[in-house]
């Protein structure tokens, strides 16, 4: 049994743990050079965050699904269908937009329960089931729209995608600065109090040398993002929705029974069952949560683009899944984090955005995205193999 801390520096694991940060810096610099500075403009970065927000919302729960060794390939088409239903209701009826929102969530609830029932209780493979249902969603989208573009979105839905937080004084985005400052202050306070508690309870050696630099870097990043948003229109509601949902689901995944059980199911489903976990029920809950988040993403999408088409949402599930894996969610299940998945998806959005700015051919963009996912999966597999080996050796 090895109780002693390993003294040798493990270069690969150091790289792997920080790979997202390293890649982000490289990608940002490359795009900055190739787009002659267009990439790192306030306007584009603010834009990029908005674009990334939709897929990131999907990634929040997609990552939990991947952690349980399942998948949801229907998310993109499901988003498209819900967006289309909302658009048709807004354009063709006089139903108030808040009711439209409720109808969308109601449809999502039904679809989520259906997924959960088929995958959780009937124990059918998620991969095939969602591959099947995405076809159904696409069909419904085409059927109700007749293949037409439907818009514009109005009311609360428009706000969800296009609105920005109002300011106190004039056009100065003061609220953005206040929110940003509060977030950073709360973050630093939480980190310090958590670490203090760990030390007090004797759970960990003090490791301020590691934590302080990390906290500083993240705080600076948050400050930079806040500043970018401040310079360009301020905090949008979409960003706020993403931020709140990320924190909420992240907290739930670590501090509720549901969250614990998700990781247990992914880590070892047999042991989870014998530990008294009702696996079917947890999977049902999870797919319901996923449907709710996709519905939220659909409303943000509709609000942002103003209209829905039959192509809406195509490939979003791919971006979200790639983002999860890039962000450290293990495809073999049991490991991952919500925050990592969101950051990873933003990274994917940055690649998309950069390539679009450079006018890269669409076919080439597909190839690049495919290879990014391949690379991320290879890294993940390599890392878990290494881990398995060290565990055996010890």
């Amino acid at each position: 049994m090895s109780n002693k801390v390993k003294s040798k520096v493990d270069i690969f694991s150091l790289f792997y743990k920080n790979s997202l940060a390293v890649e982000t810096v490289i990608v940002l610099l490359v795009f900055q050079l190739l787009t002659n500075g267009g990439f790192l403009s306030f306007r584009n970065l603010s834009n990029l965050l908005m674009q990334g927000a939709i897929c990131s919302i999907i990634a929040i729960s997609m990552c939990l699904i991947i952690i349980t060794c399942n998948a949801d390939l229907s998310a993109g088409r499901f988003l498209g269908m819900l967006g289309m239903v909302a658009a048709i209701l807004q354009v063709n009826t006089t139903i108030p937009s808040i009711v439209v929102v409720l109808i969308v969530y109601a449809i999502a609830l039904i679809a989520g329960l259906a997924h959960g029932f088929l995958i959780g209780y009937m124990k059918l493979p998620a991969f095939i089931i969602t591959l099947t249902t995405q076809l159904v969603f696409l069909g419904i989208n085409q059927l109700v729209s007749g293949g037409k573009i439907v818009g514009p979105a109005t009311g609360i839905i428009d706000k969800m995608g296009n609105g920005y937080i109002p300011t106190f004084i004039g056009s100065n985005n003061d609220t953005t600065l206040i929110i940003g400052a509060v977030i950073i202050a709360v973050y630093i306070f939480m980190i310090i109090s958590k670490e203090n508690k760990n030390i007090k309870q004797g759970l960990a050696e003090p490791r301020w040398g590691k934590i302080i630099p990390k906290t500083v870097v993240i705080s600076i990043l948050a400050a930079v993002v806040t500043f970018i948003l401040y310079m360009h229109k301020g905090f949008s509601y979409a960003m706020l929705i993403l931020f709140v949902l990320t924190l909420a689901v992240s907290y739930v995944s670590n501090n509720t029974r549901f969250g614990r059980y998700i990781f247990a199911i992914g880590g070892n489903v047999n042991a989870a069952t014998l530990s008294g976990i009702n696996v079917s029920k947890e999977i049902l809950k999870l797919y319901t949560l996923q449907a709710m988040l996709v519905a939220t993403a659909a409303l943000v999408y509709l609000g942002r683009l103003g209209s829905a088409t039959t192509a809406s949402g195509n490939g979003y599930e791919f971006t979200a899944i790639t983002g999860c894996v890039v962000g450290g969610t293990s495809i073999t299940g049991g490991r991952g984090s919500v925050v990592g998945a969101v950051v990873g998806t933003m990274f994917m959005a940055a690649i998309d955005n950069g390539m679009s700015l450079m006018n890269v051919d669409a076919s080439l963009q597909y190839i690049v995205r495919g290879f990014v996912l391949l690379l991320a999966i290879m890294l993940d597999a390599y890392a878990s193999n290494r881990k398995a080996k060290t565990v055996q050796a010890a």
Partner: protein
Amino acid sequence: MKDFILQMNHITKEFPGVKALDDVSLNLKRGEIHALVGENGAGKSTLMKVLSGEHADYTGELLLEGAIKNFKGITESEAAGIAIIHQELGLIENLNVCENIFLRNEICQNGIIKWDEQYRKTRKLLEDLNLNINPRTRVGNLGIGQQQLIEIAKALNKNCKILILDEPTAPLPEKDSENLLQLMRNLKEEGMSIIFISHKLGEVLSVSDSITILRDGQTISTKAAAEYTQDTLINGMVGRQLDARFEVRHCKIGDVALKATDWSAYDGINDKWIVRNANLEVREGEIIGIAGMIGAGRTELAMSIFGALEGAITGKMEYRGKERTHFKNTSEAIAEGVFYSSEDRKKYGLILSSDIAYNTSLSSLAKFINGGLFINRDKELGKVKEMTKRLTVKTPSILQQVGNLSGGNQQKVCLSKAIMTEPRVLILDEPTRGIDIGAKTEIYQLMNRMAGEGIAIIMISSELPEILGMSDRVYVMKEGEISGVFDNSNLTLTQEEIALAATGGVTV
């Protein structure tokens, strides 16, 4: 004096931060059975991995028939005539006996397998081993004892000179173990050199010619088997005198905690009744033992009571004085106070990639819920720490990954998890399988303490001394039925009586 076929001298192997082997020597004579004993983590497996080439970076010398070797992988060591049969069998369940034996060793002509010759050879091998098995039988349909013999046949087919058996009898019931030991003796007569790793000291003493004891990565002694006794072996392994392993309990036996009547369970996938008309009861403060061969339906009986078995269940259940239907699922059973701890802790007990705290509290999270939704982590960790201390889990921190712990400590985590649910009926399936004597004794003491607190304990075990030493009453199962119930309150039951019931009369 016979010559040495294998000499491993001054072997040292280090992992980052830990010296797994420290100047270990092992010398194997031609045609002898050499036993390697030691507690878990003593370095037995690491030494064998050095020999098989899985660990190629060690210091020291390895001589095979006098020539220095440094194997770089299993392929090389196999080619040199060394075959290891691991505790976890390496057979492919969906292939048949012949296909398994010739896997990676197929007899081919122009790339086409010559099946006739392979089947002929397989039949010959099986005959030599006195196995009455059709070479076309799917390996998954064989019992674990027979699978082990197939593994040996596979090794023999490769013309190995040294056969290494790593805990071969751990999962076997007594009778299969005896068969295996006899086979080892026969192989020895034919000139095979065998390294035998086992926790079962009785077997070690009866079958081996010489014994090497390892402790904490060091060689303690190598002597002829006749010079050891069970006590000196245990002394060498743990470095201290062990008191009587089983203590007499003096706890009050109370009301019936759980009673199953005409209990049957049906396996829909394989279309057969795996438990038939079982009648069983356990009282508060009582430990009952369930003995029987592997595959007799003991685990299935336990799982069906625990609500973990998919498939139809018939029969009546009485739980704490009230008649009720069987538990629909495991969460219902745990909420009512029944817990089952599996025989296979890695596959069915633990989330290996998670930490001790996570695993320990997994079944009792409801106790730490704050305000209806969120887990109170302080309360949870406090309770986990208390349990870890009570069960003396050896770890630097409760945030240590469970996969890094030794077998005994992993089992203690499983037990902490069980106890934390505050069970009234606790089913322990092979609670001491594959763990060292020190940890075993601690687990026996723990079981005694729990019985003293009024918990009803059902212990499934293949180790008869354990059954006899721990149980107030013993149920014996055979082919899905309970074939015998014995009173053991005076500790007067004998192994022969149990073996008779388990085999249905054909006993030694």
